[in-house]
């Protein structure tokens, strides 16, 4: 089979990444592990001495932990949304970036919930969430939603991996220890790339990609509702659901761009991840930053225009105490991607990556501005003389756990990239084949895919019928 040969060729190209580990790799992993262990040390201290060693107090009861929670969950949903919609809408250039998006989803999804655990005073009672659930609580919704999302993402991810696992199992050039080969063999699930199997995978992946999009939207709205169901002036907003979803995809697209840039250099993927891909995702980033700016603007405009005392207090604080944070996150963070992507001359791989970095950091600060100043302006005035009770400032414990989470993200991503090729080989090979077919027949590519998928569906139906 022609496609199979091409796939093995492609795989061979990526094998060195899986087979060899350089000194730099070990150094990088060691660095990450140090950061992670330091975070674990901070966590142990927090468990032993109590939450008093964080900056959180009775007014600001949630600090950077919840910001990180929103941040990582956002990245995760964004990965799912980007890869799901690219798959569903058959974006022609999706191939090389699909896996990065999928891995982002799953890795961030493992880290995000850890941060909500850091906010919990009694970790020993965590099982209570499942033993005595109250359906009325948005936290219960979130527990259910995250679990559902995790399972969905794992299935979706596995579906996209299965063909590559089969390729690796069948590869004769691969030089990996036997145990690793056995794992690949088991994970490949006996996939032989027969038309029936291929169509099955295709059909399920289509369904799951649609599912993932829906779940990501619902789940991230649920997270937004944790805030907006309360009466806090900065949170009690009807647009919080869509606002959070948009912000999530925005930051997620940024993270995917950064990862694309990183893997492009490290794995020398210049051939596969090209400027076209950067411009493609960059465009998504730009459109999202416009949406995000629009939501942010309407959120704060209504607060500012109306004259409610507490809204007014909040706006006051945002434009005084948090002035530079506000300017950075809501002006620079949204305008920079628009400027860089909007003016063709500025669109270089590095400038797009720069815009992505700024957008991601700005989004983190944006979440901080949603959480902390709101809690600093409660309904009852804060009449206290303890400075840490009046104003929140994160302690080194919280910062080291924050950086520990980022290190964990990098670490898991690094490991994942050691286990599977960072480029979905089968997907890319198929896309190449498709393109060449299209070119050969001189047909409109869109029509070609449609005809093909109709044929495939017919084939599956026939197979099922035969059985």
């Amino acid at each position, binding site marked *: 089979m022609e496609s199979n040969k091409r796939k093995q060729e492609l795989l061979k190209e990526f094998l060195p990444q899986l087979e060899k580990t350089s000194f730099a790799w070990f150094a990088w992993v060691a660095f990450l592990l140090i950061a992670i262990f330091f975070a674990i040390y901070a966590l142990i201290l927090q468990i032993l001495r109590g939450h008093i060693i964080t900056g959180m107090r009775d007014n600001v009861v949630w600090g950077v932990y919840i910001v990180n929670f929103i941040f990582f969950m956002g990245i995760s949903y964004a990965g799912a949304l980007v890869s799901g919609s690219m798959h569903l809408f058959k974006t022609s250039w999706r191939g090389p970036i699909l896996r990065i998006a999928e891995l982002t989803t799953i890795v961030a999804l493992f880290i995000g919930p850890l941060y909500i655990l850091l906010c919990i005073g009694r970790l020993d009672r965590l099982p209570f969430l499942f033993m005595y659930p*109250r*359906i*009325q609580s948005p936290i219960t919704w979130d527990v259910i939603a995250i679990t*559902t999302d995790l399972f969905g993402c794992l299935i979706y991810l*596995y*579906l996209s991996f299965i063909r590559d696992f089969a390729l690796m199992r069948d590869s004769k050039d691969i030089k990996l220890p036997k145990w690793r080969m056995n794992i690949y063999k088991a994970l490949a*699930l006996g996939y032989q790339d027969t038309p029936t199997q291929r169509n099955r995978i295709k059909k399920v992946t289509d369904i799951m990609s649609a599912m993932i999009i829906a779940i990501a939207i*619902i789940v991230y709205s649920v997270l937004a509702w944790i805030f907006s169901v309360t009466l806090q002036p900065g949170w009690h907003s009807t647009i919080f659901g869509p606002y959070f979803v948009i912000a999530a995809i925005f930051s997620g697209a940024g993270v995917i761009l950064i990862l694309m840039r990183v893997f492009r250099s490290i794995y020398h993927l210049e051939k596969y991840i090209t400027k076209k891909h950067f411009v493609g995702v960059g465009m998504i980033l730009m459109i999202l930053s416009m949406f995000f700016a629009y939501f942010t603007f309407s959120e704060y405009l209504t607060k500012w225009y109306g004259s409610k005392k507490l809204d007014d207090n909040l706006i006051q604080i945002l434009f005084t105490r948090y002035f530079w944070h506000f300017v950075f996150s809501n002006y620079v963070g949204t305008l920079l991607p628009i400027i860089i992507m909007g003016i063709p001359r500025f669109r270089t791989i590095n400038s797009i990556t720069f815009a992505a970095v700024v957008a991601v950091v700005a989004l983190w600060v944006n979440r901080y501005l949603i959480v902390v100043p709101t809690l600093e302006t409660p309904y009852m005035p804060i009449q206290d003389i303890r400075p840490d009770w009046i104003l929140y400032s994160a302690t080194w414990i919280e910062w080291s756990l924050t950086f520990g989470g980022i290190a964990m993200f990098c670490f898991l991503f690094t490991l994942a990239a050691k286990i599977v090729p960072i480029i979905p080989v089968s997907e890319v090979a198929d896309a190449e084949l498709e393109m060449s077919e299209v070119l050969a027949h001189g047909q409109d590519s869109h029509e070609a895919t449609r005809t093909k998928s109709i044929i495939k569906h017919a084939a599956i139906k026939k197979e099922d019928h035969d059985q």
Partner: protein
Amino acid sequence: MINKTRLFRQSLIVLLLTIVASFQLMAQETASSIELKALKNSDDSRIFNVKLTGESEAGAVPVFEATVDFYTIAEGKSELVGSAVTNKEGKASLKLGKETRYLKSKEGVAEVKTSFKGLGKLIGSEASVKFKELNLQVTLSEKDTSNTIHVKASSIGPNGEMIPLKETNFNLYVQGLFSKLKIGECFVDAGEGTFEFPNNIPGDENGNLKIFVRLEENEDYGEIEKAENAKWGNHRSGFAEPERSLWSSGAPIWMITTLIILLAGVWSHYIYAIVQLIKIRKEDKKIEQK
């Protein structure tokens, strides 16, 4: 002359010193004070409440574990009727049944004295109350929608004859959870008085009320109380917690249905996906068999 004045001066100093010393001696002793209140209950028993405090630098401090004795006194005679021990609040009480015979003066006035004898540095103290016997009858009547309380009161004359009570105000209360609520006053003259009971007092969950008719701070008769139970309350149905609400233990039905539909929709697709994966595995085996 000189000697005389010196002697005089010296004796004056000695005298002064003695006075100062004796004051100091007295200052080391602690004065106590006792408060006594008496109440005649519905069952014609009497309860005597005592509070004993001692003066200290910190102000009045309750005296605990002190024995106080109660005497009935009249015309120079005195009989012990009982004693009680104070608690940590300095309080003690003595209940005397209706069979108790109090010594009485010619005018029919009884006096009960409580006394703390004093011990060590604590100086004793006394207090007393005076009262005359009063017959108090309370009857309740219901007519159509109006509920009435009838109060009859008469004192006992020196020869045992009944003397109707003149121009006296009785206070009316209903019992609340923590205290009694005053609902009005009943004016008694020529031994009788009536009171229209308000119809908007809730009472307990069954509309039951405990009504008190009290004579308070009366010079002649002291404190007298008579209690009656009546089902005169207009208790409305209480505070009903909604069965399924955001804050109850059971969730609203719509919430449960929405959740089930959403989860069923999503997880059925997951199951479908897993079934497809299992099929792929089976197909592989088929191929191998072939």
